[in-house]
């Protein structure tokens, strides 16, 4: 799959008219769809705004985004072919990697020194492509780790149980609720390492919700999950959005995206080549080229 087959951003403006059509037709459905669907467009109520974000590894530019906004309270899908820079973008925004340059704003505040834990405490939690369930801790302990502001996590209070017992109890109740919701209640006291791959994805997602986050970033939540479980995962994502949480998720497969996304951002070679409503983006020629170019190359080799 030669990377040069993927069309670059220069060809995008030719397709602008079709984006405008789509926007007009769906005006009544969602306020987000009144937005002019072009790369880097401004949105009514963004939770995350990126500017001039750039990261390169050696000679390879993994992420190069002029401007991108993520709308609050909806489900945004981040799609793109392999090596498009999706995970790198996640890593930059969540503080797991350092950008060469650029800045971004989260929840109306500039992110000055991005550190993963600080961003998480501000309400931006993420999951990982390769799940990071904590194998030698029980499922319940995994959940409790997700709870924020725990008094018992401070060393001075740790030895004195009465100081944190009540909070621990409340967190346990919340954890049990979520486990019930994610069909993991029966595994509550098992070690997380004994869960199946799909169950780990569920656990990771449920654990992320323990902190009542404002923004949840899911890195390929459906990867390696059996179809039945994938359906339930999709259901959870939709429910999340309904409860007011903003969701951004990475997906490799365009077909999965259309069902649950309100907005789709397409990345190729680190750049935003298209964004808009799912139906329109999927039929965008630039996007199709980006994908099919890759697929054609893949089958011919």
């Amino acid at each position, binding site marked *: 799959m030669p990377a040069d087959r993927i069309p670059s951003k220069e060809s995008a403006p030719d397709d602008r008219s079709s984006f405008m059509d789509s926007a007009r037709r769906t005006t009544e459905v969602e306020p987000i769809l009144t937005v002019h669907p072009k790369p880097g467009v401004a949105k009514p109520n963004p939770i995350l705004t990126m500017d001039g974000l750039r990261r390169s*590894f*050696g000679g390879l530019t993994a992420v190069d985004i002029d401007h991108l906004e993520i709308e609050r309270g909806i489900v945004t899908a981040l799609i793109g072919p392999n090596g498009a820079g999706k*995970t*790198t973008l*996640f*890593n930059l925004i969540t503080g*797991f*990697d350092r950008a060469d340059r650029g800045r971004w704003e989260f929840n109306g505040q500039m992110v000055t020194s991005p550190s993963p834990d600080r961003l998480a405490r501000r309400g931006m939690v993420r999951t*990982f*492509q*390769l799940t990071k369930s904590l194998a030698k801790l029980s499922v319940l302990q995994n959940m409790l780790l997700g709870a924020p502001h725990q008094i018992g996590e401070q060393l001075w209070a740790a030895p004195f149980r009465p100081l944190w017992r009540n909070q621990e109890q409340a967190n346990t109740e919340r954890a049990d609720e979520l486990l019930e919701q994610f069909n993991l209640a029966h595994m509550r006291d098992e070690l997380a390492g004994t869960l199946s791959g799909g169950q780990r994805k569920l656990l990771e997602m449920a654990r992320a919700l323990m902190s009542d986050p404002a923004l949840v970033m899911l*890195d390929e939540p459906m990867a390696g999950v059996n179809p039945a479980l994938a359906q339930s995962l999709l259901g959870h994502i939709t429910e999340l959005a309904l409860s007011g949480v903003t969701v951004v998720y990475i997906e490799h497969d365009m077909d999965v995206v259309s069902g649950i996304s309100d907005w789709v951002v397409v990345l190729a070679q680190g750049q935003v080549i298209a964004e808009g409503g799912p139906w329109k983006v999927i039929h965008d020629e630039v996007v199709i080229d980006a994908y099919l170019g890759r697929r054609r190359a893949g089958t011919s080799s």
Partner: protein
Amino acid sequence: MRRGKILLGLALGLLMALAVPALAQDGADHGQTQLNGTIRFGFDQFFEGVTITVADSSGAEVGQAATDADGRWSVPVPGPGAYRVSIDTGTLPEGIGLREGQESVVDAVVDAGQSRAVVFAVGEAPKGTPFGERAAQTVFNGFKFGLIIAMSAIGLSLIYGTTGLVNFAHGELVTFGAVIAWYFNSSWGELNLIVAAVLTVIVCGMLGAGLESGLFRPLRARRLGIFQLVVITIGLSLLGRQLVQLFFGAEPLPYRDFQVQERWEFGPWAVTPREVATIAVIIAALVAVGLMLQKTRFGKATRAVADNADLAAVSGINVNRVVLIVWVMGAALAGLGGVFQGLDADIDPFLGFQLLLLIFAGVELGGLGTAYGALAGSLIIGMSTEVSTLWISPELKFVVPLAALILVLLLRPQGLFGVKARVG
């Protein structure tokens, strides 16, 4: 050439001085707890009237003596324990002083009834060798030491690269090389050291093959965790070191050959032929390994395995065979490194372990898993060790590279040439 002769004499003198403890102990009157020694230079110069002072550990003077016509002195001490012995260099004849790097105060521990010899290596006083010349010499020594580290590091680095194993017993492979060569050279058949070194390389290669096929390959098949493997290598390291202590003993011993050599002069450098040979052999070995990794099929296979062992296996590379060759090569080079190190600093059971920390430091400084980084890191470690002796006491010289390592990692956690890994 005059200087060459003096250096030859110096080396001989030192050799004689090293032999003194054995002589002194044998001839001593048992029951008398004392410190003694001989102040001499070469075979024929003994210095009379040199003042030696002995103090106990609290600093109180225990006794004083002056050397007799044969340069001998002895000071009885009240009992077993640690004493500080100092030589009054002012009482040495004009133009004679302590050899470079020698301290005028030496600490010695005596057991009850023991006669403990204390060596002050004297020679032509270092008439303030110009700083530039000393600097040039330490840079040379550091370069040579760095090369020894680098050669010993190849195996460690390649084994880590291909199997993810951090081998804490790698230092014992180095020790083993030094010791085996010593046995070949001094005990079994009294072979010439060059022949002994060749045999040692073969034995060490076989040892590497045995370790891989007999131990580490089955362990990989059992999918033991990284940490368990590290602990196993630590266990092997302890075991190996104790075995060397058991059979070889704890006393440092030199090889029979190439100890005393006339120095060649190149500009500011005075080097012995054996040092030149050491450097030439190591550079040849490093170039050979580099070419092999870059050019040959085996080299490509090695790099493929290091990159992704599973993928390499799927593409038809015999991973176990690659790893076996890496082990054989790594162990053989480590053994050869041990021979050179032993040639430089005598052989003792801790030779390899002491080097291991510096090997690790070199590999880390360059960046874990980068071949050229490891070479550069090793050279930096070797140089900083030796060059530091220009300013600080030689007994502290190992502090410098280790401290440098910590400082570099503070600024660049991935090492000088390493690349940061991606998360997720």
